[in-house]
């Protein structure tokens, strides 16, 4: 060992002796022990700034020791410097450093007790001493600029290769500190036991260089449990191509090291914060210990709970519901299902529906409603809106008005006025129905000392009369979701545009303002088609995953895609039960309640 190093170590031990912390031991004799040398050199390497007054480190002059053994790794000072702006590194590269207390301490000579365990055959994962010490030391910036706070990991080997520190005996040092901090990093046990007071760090004009003892932090990108992973271990400061070997991982993590590329690969099987250690080298000659942390994210699908809503809650609503009806030459089926998000939170389904068919007049009616997420009684609002509009429309369609409209429909081709008559009639009808719904909601709100806003809901409605190959459709659209007349293949007639705002999720609801809006009529459409295959109404729990945007809604091919998925379910006696099952499909980011009504 170089003479200067020896001197340094002896200085340290002399200071410890002088401190009186170990009155019964001859500290200088410890300089013969490999492990002690290692520890001391590690400490010194990682303290970048030395207090001149620190008697236990000798004078500033003696601290200018550059240890240059053979085969020193060729890391630049920048690499060692962990140059970074204040505070954190950029997310992708930042090392999850163990939490070290930033407790400001006055310099005092008391050296903490060290408990030294010889632990043969294990590579030091991290000596908490080294880690935390560095972190604390580097926290106080020099006037020239703040040093990086990233913890320097890796106890480095002794300068001479003759001392097989890495491969063989390695010492774990556990500093027993009287004042362990409460603030432990979650899942980061190493940091919890620490903290010998470092000398208060002051800018030193002659920082000690130990190029043989590189202190490098490493990063690995986060992984996802159950998904293939392949990523390189990289030094935090970037750059240098390094070689890696002997990766050690927590049991069960199921990842391996590709030594030729330095990549960690595999499919992580356990989630949580993981620490791995390994050996690294710049030249495949001299190897150092290294380690780094990364996070394995759990598979989101595994995190979904299914909690029933409160059975004693007001306005109870079933998690699923559906109905199937038949008319002459047509069937109607509707399914409604509580979304994954509400299942997870134990909340009610907020969607609702209304479907009916009158054989005598051949009129069908389909309505779907979506109660607003943030409104506490919106599940009740959606039900009231569906029932109010549905009830009113059906009673009118069954009556003389309905017959009048049928007559007008029959004259559609000959009489240009017929279309207009029907349009005006439906305008009046839907307006009355909407007003009724709003009044009923307001009354209900008052009866429970709530506001109408607490019952906010969307409403999409379609009155359909299908006979002899002709299909007449009159629709009303308030809110998001979609109403479409589909068919033949590739063709969609969208019966309006969804209400949306600048940000995702904003929409309009059926309220007083909506029914008194001068542009109310814009929400109505009528049409007559002889090539339509089906009429579909859905809440945004279905339209969002399938269409995503207004643009997507207008895309016939996307409707083809939906129909391909949907039509196989429209079979048997109870297609609504199949629909309810179908509505359980998993699409990341889309966990809303889902309702779909189909006439085909």
């Amino acid at each position, binding site marked *: 060992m170089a003479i200067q190093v020896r001197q340094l170590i002896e200085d340290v031990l002399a200071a410890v002796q002088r401190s009186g912390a170990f009155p019964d031991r001859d500290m200088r004799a410890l300089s013969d022990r490999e492990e002690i040398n290692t520890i001391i050199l590690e400490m010194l390497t990682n303290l970048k700034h030395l207090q001149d007054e620190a008697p236990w480190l000798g004078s500033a002059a003696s601290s200018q020791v550059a240890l240059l053994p053979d085969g020193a790794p060729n890391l630049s000072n920048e690499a060692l410097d962990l140059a970074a702006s204040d505070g954190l590194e950029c997310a992708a590269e930042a090392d999850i450093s163990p939490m070290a207390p*930033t407790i400001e301490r006055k310099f005092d000579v008391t050296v903490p007790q060290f408990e030294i365990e010889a632990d043969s055959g294990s590579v030091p994962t991290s000596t908490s001493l080294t880690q935390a010490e560095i972190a604390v030391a580097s926290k106080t910036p020099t006037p020239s600029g703040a040093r990086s706070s990233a*913890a320097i990991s890796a106890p480095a080997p002794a300068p001479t290769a003759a001392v097989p520190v890495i491969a063989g005996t390695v010492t774990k040092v556990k500093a027993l500190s009287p004042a362990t*901090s409460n603030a432990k*990093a979650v899942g980061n046990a190493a940091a919890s036991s620490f903290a010998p007071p470092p000398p208060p760090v002051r800018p030193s004009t002659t920082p000690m260089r130990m190029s043989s003892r590189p202190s490098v932090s490493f990063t690995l990108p986060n992984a996802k449990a159950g998904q293939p992973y392949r990523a390189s271990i990289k030094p935090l400061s970037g750059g240098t191509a390094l070689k890696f070997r002997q990766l050690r991982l927590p049991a069960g993590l199921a990842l391996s090291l590709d030594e030729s590329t330095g990549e960690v690969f595999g499919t992580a099987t356990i989630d949580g914060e993981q620490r791995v250690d390994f050996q690294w080298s710049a030249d495949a000659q001299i190897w150092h210990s290294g380690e780094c942390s990364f996070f394995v994210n759990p598979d989101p699908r595994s995190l979904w709970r299914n909690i029933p809503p409160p059975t004693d809650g007001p306005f109870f609503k079933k998690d699923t519901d559906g109905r199937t009806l038949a008319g002459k030459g047509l069937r109607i089926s509707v399914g409604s299902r509580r979304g994954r*998000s509400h299942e997870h939170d134990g909340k009610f389904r907020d969607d609702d529906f209304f479907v009916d068919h009158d054989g005598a007049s051949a009129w069908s009616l389909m309505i779907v409603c979506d109660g607003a*997420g*943030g409104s506490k009684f919106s599940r009740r609002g959606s039900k009231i809106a569906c029932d109010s509009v549905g009830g009113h429309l059906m009673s009118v369609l069954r009556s003389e008005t309905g017959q009048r409209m049928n007559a007008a429909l029959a004259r559609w081709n000959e009489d240009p006025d017929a279309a207009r008559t029907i349009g005006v009639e439906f305008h009046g009808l839907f307006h009355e129905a909407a007003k009724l719904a709003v009044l009923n909601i307001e009354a209900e709100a008052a009866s429970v000392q709530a506001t109408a806003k607490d019952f906010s809901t969307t409403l999409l409605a379609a009155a359909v009369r299908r006979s002899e190959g002709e299909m007449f459709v009159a629709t009303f659209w308030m809110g998001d979701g979609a109403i479409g007349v589909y068919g033949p293949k590739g063709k969609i007639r969208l019966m309006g545009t969804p209400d949306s705002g600048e940000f*995702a999720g904003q929409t309009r609801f059926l309220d007083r303002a909506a029914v008194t809006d001068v542009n109310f009529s814009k929400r109505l459409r009528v049409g007559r088609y002889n090539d339509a295959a089906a009429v579909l109404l859905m809440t945004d729990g279905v339209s969002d*995953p399938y269409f995503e945007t207004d643009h997507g809604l207008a895309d016939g091919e996307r409707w083809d895609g939906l129909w391909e998925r949907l039509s196989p379910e429209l079979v048997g006696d109870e297609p609504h039960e199949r629909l309810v099952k179908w509505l359980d499909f998993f699409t990341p980011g889309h966990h809303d309640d889902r309702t779909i009504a189909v006439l085909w």
Partner: protein
Amino acid sequence: MTTRRLPVYLLLDTSGSMRGEPIQSVNAGMHALLSALRQDPVALESVHLCVITFDTQAREVLPLTPLSDVALGEITVPEAGATFMGAALELLIARVDRDVRRSTPTAKGDWRPLLVLMTDGSPSDLQAFKDAAAEVASRNFGSIIACAAGPKAKSEHLSLLTDKVATLDTMDAAAFGSFFKWVSVSVAVGSSSVGVAGQISLPPPPAEVNFVH
């Protein structure tokens, strides 16, 4: 298909008075926040975090990053710093304008972003703070939570920003721990309430956090 993002902006005071146990507690709180959010399936899919610290400067220490990719280093406090909260808000506004996506006909935009601001003092750049606070109000955040930590924090400035001002009586691990836990629940609620018009109602704050109305 891309999932809609929920941008969450955290503005953290790193002025000189935060040195020691306070910032240590904040770091622990942040880690706890990350751990908690990572256990929430909705948060994992949608939350994107951005962390800005402020002392004599405002710094974006974590750019808007998906929750699953966040590797949070340690937030530190420079030797002696004032509290340039106005600069922090200005940086926030610049980042929001740059990063948050609006809906277009062809692409769904982000959910309304959430903002959490924590300070233990008052803005050294008061005028800048007042101007910026007014600007922030027009950026349509889904929810803004401000936290006045410790005895020297002044909550009246924070009331310019939001009516949800929480105060912590102490700046120890327990207080910050509770606060960050509440933030994580609020973010989770926020991510599941994303479709809501108007202000999202937050879960009730824990005992250590007092609301100023």
